[in-house]
């Protein structure tokens, strides 16, 4: 049998901002780990290796490892992104990892985006509002495939929280709904089953914590790992909301 030979990879230095808020003695501090890079290494793989070899108590979140569940958002060299989708080869040899700001810190790189997202969803009522109770025995009303596509395009949001962490407005003003919220409004606005009018939507996003708070910095658009068209959607919603009268 042939033994596999591999050219030695780059020596990576991975610095992780560690802190355990449950421990009153814990202070946030950087922990540094040395790894050898190999082909196809993602930050998910690198973190697993760190946990296996150096720091069994390292906290970070992963579920799908494929950019679908949205649990692995973290700040990579200053920019929010999904760890499972980030190849180390796209980064310099020194990599810093920090938890997403704004969300409740669980420990190390693990944050609770769920609580924030739930608050946002309740505030914006991000569900289909129907006037009539649907008849569960009848066929659902048909939707044009193009429209379904359009809705699906916006529905691809995985609530990873990267757009919030990347938003200067959200960082300064904590009640700002952020791109994730505005995108959801755009999504339900498209949905013919949601019978809310623009005047209704204005009630939830027509203020400076909503669409008028957005200062068009487009950090959200530029980091969204799902490449959602956040710029055009926010601009669209803004146009719709100023014409509500």
């Amino acid at each position, binding site marked *: 049998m042939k033994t596999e030979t591999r050219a030695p990879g780059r020596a990576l230095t991975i610095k992780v901002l560690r802190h355990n808020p449950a421990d009153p003695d814990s202070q946030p501090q950087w922990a540094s780990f040395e790894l050898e890079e190999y082909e196809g290494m993602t930050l998910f793989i690198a973190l697993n290796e760190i946990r296996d070899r150096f720091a069994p108590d390292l906290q970070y979140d992963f579920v799908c490892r494929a950019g679908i569940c949205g649990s692995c958002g973290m700040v990579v060299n200053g920019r929010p992104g999904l760890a499972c989708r980030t190849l180390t080869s796209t980064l310099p040899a020194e990599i810093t990892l920090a938890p997403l700001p704004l969300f409740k810190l669980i420990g190390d790189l693990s944050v609770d985006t769920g609580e924030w997202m739930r608050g946002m969803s309740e505030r914006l009522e991000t569900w289909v509002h129907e006037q009539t109770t649907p008849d569960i025995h009848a066929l659902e009303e048909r939707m044009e495939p193009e429209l379904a596509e359009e809705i699906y395009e916006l529905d691809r949001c995985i609530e990873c929280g990267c757009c919030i962490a990347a938003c200067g407005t959200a960082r*300064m003003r904590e009640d700002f709904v952020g791109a994730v919220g505005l995108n959801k409004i755009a999504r339900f606005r498209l949905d013919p089953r949601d019978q809310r009018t623009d005047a209704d939507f204005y009630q939830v996003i027509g203020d400076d914590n909503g669409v*008028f708070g957005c200062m068009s910095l487009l950090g959200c658009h530029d980091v969204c790992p799902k490449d959602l068209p956040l710029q*055009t959607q926010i*601009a669209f919603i*803004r*146009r719709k909301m100023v014409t509500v009268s």
Partner: protein
Amino acid sequence: MKNSLLPARLDLAQSITGLVLAVFMAFHLIFDSSILLGAGAFDFVSGALEGKLIFGEKIPLITTAVVLVVFAIFIAHAGLAMRKFPQNARQYRTFRTHMKEMRHGDTSLWWLQIWTGFAMFFLASVHLYIIMTQPQTIGPAGSAYRIVFEWKWPLYLLLTVAVVLHAAVGLYRLAVKWGWFEGKDPNRRRKTLKKAVWIVTAVYLTMSLAALGAFVHIGLTGQDHFGTVVEGLGS
């Protein structure tokens, strides 16, 4: 109703006042730069804008009236945009840290807009007030005198840089904010717009600073850079 229509109106007003000011500045700086074509050209342009072609003589009150309107729009815009400033030390620090970490162009440009805007509170107010109250002094000689001997050149230097950067970035932001010129591929279009911002900035800065230089030249030598003697400087 919970949300009033006020936030929508204010946001729109912020953009409209910004747009009007930017368009005004686009023309203002071109007219101002007519000095590059010589003292005669500037005399003609400033005279024409004061109604000489219609009334046969300059009517400085026209300038006063126009400046009054611009001043009002300026104050409205500053008041509206001020809402977006960091409101306290914590917000200020948070944004600074965020900007440094993100290394993200549009985020940093916003910071530039905040600072140039803040600077203009003072710089533009002084300028507007002087022009509004002394419109009769505008002309190749009067303006050069003011710039050199009344020490307006440092003010104008800073104001020119601030206003050109602020207005160019502001127009870019207007485009992305309202979704103008998105075209078929908004991402590509955004890059093009950004490029346009830098070209406009470079062209306007070069032109306006050269014009300022031309005024300084007149003030120091008593003639424009074509050698035409400028009368009336020696007051």
